[in-house]
């Protein structure tokens, strides 16, 4: 893919949850770490997120969900990525996600999950690792 060296990341808020503090802090921290960051804003459907990932040609998607809708919405995003042939795009998830759900999400293809108290440094490192095979 012909583009710059910068890692391209989509930060997305799926569902109806408006708690965007974490998403915005992460988006800004990734940008400060030298990445190209696109933030979708709140209330995105899984379909909208897949479409943005396609349009923006991103390496990584980070979704933030605090409402408990992760087990319904994240699989829909993964399915959508597959349907559009975007299997190479890595999906990371943060928010209030119980440990057993984290395990289930990793099984279906989520690269990494982040709970409360995660440092942004840890997230930056994980995004870099997730994007590295493509670079």
């Amino acid at each position, binding site marked *: 893919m012909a583009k710059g060296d910068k890692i391209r990341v989509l930060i997305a808020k799926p*569902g*109806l*949850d*408006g*708690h*965007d*503090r974490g998403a*915005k*802090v992460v*988006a*800004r*921290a990734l940008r400060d770490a030298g990445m190209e960051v696109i*933030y*979708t*804003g*709140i*209330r995105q*459907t899984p379909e909208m997120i897949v479409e943005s990932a396609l349009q923006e040609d991103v390496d990584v998607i980070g979704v933030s969900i605090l*409402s*408990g*809708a*992760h*087990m*319904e*919405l994240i699989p*829909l995003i993964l399915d959508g990525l597959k349907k559009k042939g975007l299997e190479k795009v890595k999906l990371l998830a943060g928010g*209030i996600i*119980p*440990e057993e759900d984290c395990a289930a999400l990793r099984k279906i293809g989520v690269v990494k999950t982040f*709970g*409360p*108290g995660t*440092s*942004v*440094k840890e997230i930056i490192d994980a995004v870099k690792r997730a994007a590295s095979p493509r670079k």
Partner: protein
Amino acid sequence: MSTRTRRTKKEWEETTLKPALKRYPEREARFETVSGIEVDALYTPEDMPDFDYERDLGYPGQYPFTRGVQPNTYRGRVWTMRQYSGYATAEESNRRYRYLMKHGQTGLSVAFDLPTQMGYDSDHLLARGEVGKVGVPICTLADMEALFKGIPLDKVSTSMTINATAPILLAFYIAVAKKQGVDISRLDGTVQNDILKEYIARGTYIFPPRPSMRLITDVFRYCTEHLPSWNTISISGYHMREAGATAVQELAFTFANAIEYVQAAVSAGLDVDSFAGRLSFFFVSHNNLFEEAAKFRAARRIWAKIMREHFGAKNPRSWMLRFHTQTAGVTLTAQQPENNVVRATVQSLAAILGGTQSLHTCSKDEALSLPSEEAVQLSLRTQQVLAHESGVTETVDPLAGSYYVEHLTNTLERETNKYLKRIEDLGGATAAIEKGFQQREIQESSYRFQKDVESGKHVIVGINKYTSPYPPMKGLFKLDPAEIRKQIEGLNRVRKERDKARVEAGLAMLEKAARGTENTMPIFVECAEAYATIGEMCDVLRGVFGAQREFLVF
């Protein structure tokens, strides 16, 4: 006094403090509150140079209410213990309410799920995954009847955290009361009904600001006539603070919004004293004990001045700031979760020292899930211990006269007023929101805070200091997916059994009122009684008012 103090303080600094600092340097170059207000080593009368007791503090129950809105505060009755809850279905939530009341809770506080807050029925495509998660789903009057089954509405006060759809949920509540045979003029409770802060933080707005303000004014007018004891709005700083605002921003953005609501109602022809006494507020109680206690004191004084000086309200009730407090969810940690009990205790204490009218104490497991029954009971017990064992309730405003607390109270008031001036210069709260002003200010504060956490400048026990392995938390709350199916089955049953003609007639009336100027509240009540769904009513309004997109994304 102050010249003498200045001299003696200088002497103390030279002869006593400086030699000590040589041997024991201070931990920080600059000490500050979590909101960034600088804190000196010592406060003396010098820090309150123009202090005038009668003017600045006065007496509780009297202007400017710095010391409280009730003459004897908690000596008559302690604050209302009101734990926010709701999940799964109306039946399940009803069970939790009865449990809490059995354990001594004195007021109800309803959490609605996101589809209900956004005006979608439980089976709407956009409700996927969200039904019953952060609150109870209420689609029709039938759900509301189940929610309050066996709870006589003339015997409880009910707070409902609902904003864009507040008039609809209030209409459901009124309809339940009528079915219970309760005189609706006796209803006691609160709807949050604060849409402006939703554009700034939290995000559950549906319509653009102008029609939203009109719906709010409709509620003010209707309640003035029919529900005289109802708090028609709970103007909230809580969510903005949780999104990252400082204490000063919390106060300033809340009061800027409050000014906008009062102005809208006055412009719509309401006499300020006819509704101002029913305005209520909602603040967070965060970690810094003294800053928070001072914040509540400053808030009362700021509001009293706004209402008397700016709006010319004549009735002392209109000057009184009454508020609910919740401890800071954002301070809860998933790591070493038992520490959260201690945090919530300190925060609850700050709210009580600040004279709150009602309180929710967050539970230790809430960084991970909705609270379990056991964790909520501990939160309630925390309040009960503070109320009955700590002794802090026995005198009014016990921190008054503390040089430090009065200094903080004055500083918070002064800094809040500076922000209010900036927002006024931008054209008021709504215009500032449209420009993304408050959103950007909060983003800056939250990013600064996160950087301070990352650098270790701001210590969070168990996160960036004193970390230790901890076992995964046991007994976390879990939602049963079967409950969600039940919700949708129930909704379909109501749709089948109701009088369709009456629903259609109600929705047609609603459309007409929305397009015109007729008060929408009585029509919401008619639609509710016809078993129209929240989604149907909001679809009508979306058709007339349009939908609002996020003002400032990033």
